[in-house]
């Protein structure tokens, strides 16, 4: 089904009359759908999240007048159906090729990308991650308590702060890995007679 601007606008309006709030809610729902599909072991969770949104948009004209519950519950119901179908397909041997093959990171590329991203991180953030992860077990708990006290924040806030640095690193690594994968694909598709440009 082709999603038109009008049908997407209708979805946003259903989520909230305020378009900005609706857009934020849409992003939140989509991010939640991706987490649900990843947690259930599906590769290419974004594809299934988009499939869920497409189905909701398609059914919206029929249900909108009579549906009284929160939109999130409707999304959840559709997601459950999409999940059930995907798991059933996985159990039954088929010739259907996944939308996008799963991209598993090669260890060498990951190490190189993380080294690059680590070096790009400001020193204080590297220190935070270093101090946060340097101990195990009880020492870790005590160390976190001490770090939080020194920063005058709660242990929970420290945990969140470390997480944000990890997210920054992970996003950087993802971009780097995608860039490496693209270079490999481009390199492989070059024909003879054309000078291969291996970009480093």
């Amino acid at each position, binding site marked *: 089904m082709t999603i038109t601007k009008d049908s997407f606008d209708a979805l946003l309006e259903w989520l909230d009359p305020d378009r900005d709030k609706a857009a934020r809610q849409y992003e939140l729902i989509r991010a939640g*759908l991706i987490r*649900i599909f990843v947690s259930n072991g599906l590769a290419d969770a974004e594809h299934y999240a988009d499939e869920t949104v497409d189905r909701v948009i398609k059914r919206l004209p029929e249900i909108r007048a009579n549906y009284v519950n929160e939109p999130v519950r409707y999304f959840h119901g559709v997601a459950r159906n999409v999940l059930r179908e995907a798991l059933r397909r996985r159990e039954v041997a088929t010739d259907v090729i996944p939308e996008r093959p799963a991209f598993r990171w090669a260890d060498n590329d990951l190490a190189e990308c993380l080294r690059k991203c680590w070096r790009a991180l400001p020193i204080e953030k590297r220190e935070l991650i270093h101090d*946060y992860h340097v101990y195990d077990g009880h020492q870790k708990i005590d160390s976190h308590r001490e770090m939080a006290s020194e920063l005058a924040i709660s242990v929970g806030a420290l945990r969140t702060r470390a997480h944000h640095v990890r997210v920054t690193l992970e996003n950087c690594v993802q971009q780097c890995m995608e860039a490496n994968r693209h270079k490999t694909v481009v390199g492989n598709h070059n024909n003879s007679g054309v000078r291969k440009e291996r970009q480093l």
Partner: protein
Amino acid sequence: MGQLTGADEETVELRLLGDSAFQEEFDITVDEIAALYVTNQFTGEEKAQVEKHFLESPERQNKVKFIGELLRNASISPTELTEDDTPAVVSETPTVTQSKPSLFERIRSWWGSQPVSMRAATTFATVVVVVGLAFLLRPGGGEPTYQSLELAMASPDRSAGSEIARVKLGWGIDGLRIKLKLPVDAPPTKNYRVRLRGEKVSRQLPVQQQDPQSLTVVVPPNDLTPGSYAIELSGIADNGTELPLRGAYLFVVE
């Protein structure tokens, strides 16, 4: 991990769809599980459950690889860089390196164009600059260069005779390597926690080397602006209890 009931699973999933704080908490928990897995904190049935449920998707497998590699990087001192210090730029466009005259060549060229009197007057300054540059541009394996300091613990009452060490940091060093002599009454623990305190810094220092008589730590130069510093030491008992030592290692950076 396949342990939630249907109703609980629905509750979690609905919260994931509608609560951004819960999404963040969820992500943090995923990271923590990944960290526990890569550090072999899971065993037996628990480990099997993690491998069966948590690691099923490629995204989670990549997550675990990322966390493992991150912990490996994080265990290295944050100021130790294995290659050059310039920040990385992740970009798909190729970087074209052009050869430019090195700083040595530019200085030599400038030097040759100056009148003799000027050359005589600036000889000392130039030597200092060139020596400093040679230090910075030293070829080869990039071995860090440290300035060394050895300290004994000062008693809490700063009794007479215990002078505070003073150090002036050399230019271009990678850090101040401090050998902390353990006092005779130090607790016989395998692990120690070392903390540096100054006016503008308070941080733990990883122990680089350890023997029965001393610990060695390295402090990056950025953390050592002129001022007074104290290094505090605690022994860590096997049960995780911290045993602070009375006294501190004191020094002044000029």
